[in-house]
């Protein structure tokens, strides 16, 4: 099954995928398009991806979770296309026998997604400009002594 979709994300389906009577704790993460003080009137973000590689990386990340946290089960989806402010771009659910494992596994997945999974975003701003997001270059403020 593909981890990518262009439809709105729903946690219910992911929860159903991982639920098991042996799992007492389930941790979920939703990443949503933000328009906060650090943004500049972001109305939406357009997500694109190297889709074949995304599937490979996500499959490897899920397998790593199973190796690191015995009994943990993970389901996730990343949405592509234009996603408006307030809507979710990524949804991750991790269930495990105990809650510490569920939190750690869920956190691991989102950190690895941010680090390894070839997805890009272009901010669409209210003033009509479009900006590719470069997390490695943010924040752009220079030290005072430069």
């Amino acid at each position, binding site marked *: 099954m593909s981890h990518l979709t262009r439809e709105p994300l729903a946690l219910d389906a992911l929860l159903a995928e991982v639920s098991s009577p042996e799992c007492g704790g389930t941790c979920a993460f939703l990443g949503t398009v933000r328009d906060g003080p650090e943004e500049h009137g972001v109305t939406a973000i357009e997500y694109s991806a190297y889709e074949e*590689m*995304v599937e490979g990386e996500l499959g490897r990340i899920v397998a790593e979770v199973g190796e690191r946290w015995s009994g943990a089960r993970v389901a996730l989806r990343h949405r592509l296309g234009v996603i408006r402010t307030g809507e979710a771009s990524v949804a991750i659910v991790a269930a495990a026998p105990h809650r510490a494992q569920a939190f750690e596994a869920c956190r691991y997945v989102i950190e690895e997604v941010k680090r390894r999974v070839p997805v*890009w975003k272009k901010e669409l701003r209210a003033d009509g400009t479009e900006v590719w*997001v470069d997390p490695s270059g943010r924040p752009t403020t220079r030290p005072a002594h430069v």
Partner: protein
Amino acid sequence: MRLTSPSGPSGTIRVRFFARYAELVGRSEAAVAVPLPATVGDVVRRVRDQLPGARDIPERPLAAVNLRHVKLDASVRDGDEVALLPPIAGG
């Protein structure tokens, strides 16, 4: 160093561009011929030298070969798919 040996075997690499890099070169892929043996770094140099707009791709971009992250000193073979990846910003 540029690989320009005229006598050895050569390979054709399918190079893919994404996001800002695809915008810079105005295309999503290209077939690039390189003398073998060659590394991903060699392919990047070829691309930056030969493809219009590709000079704005960094000299040392993130790269993948056949759907896996690699360093620039990884070797490539005829028929490989090399992807040049802008800074990842998913999630």
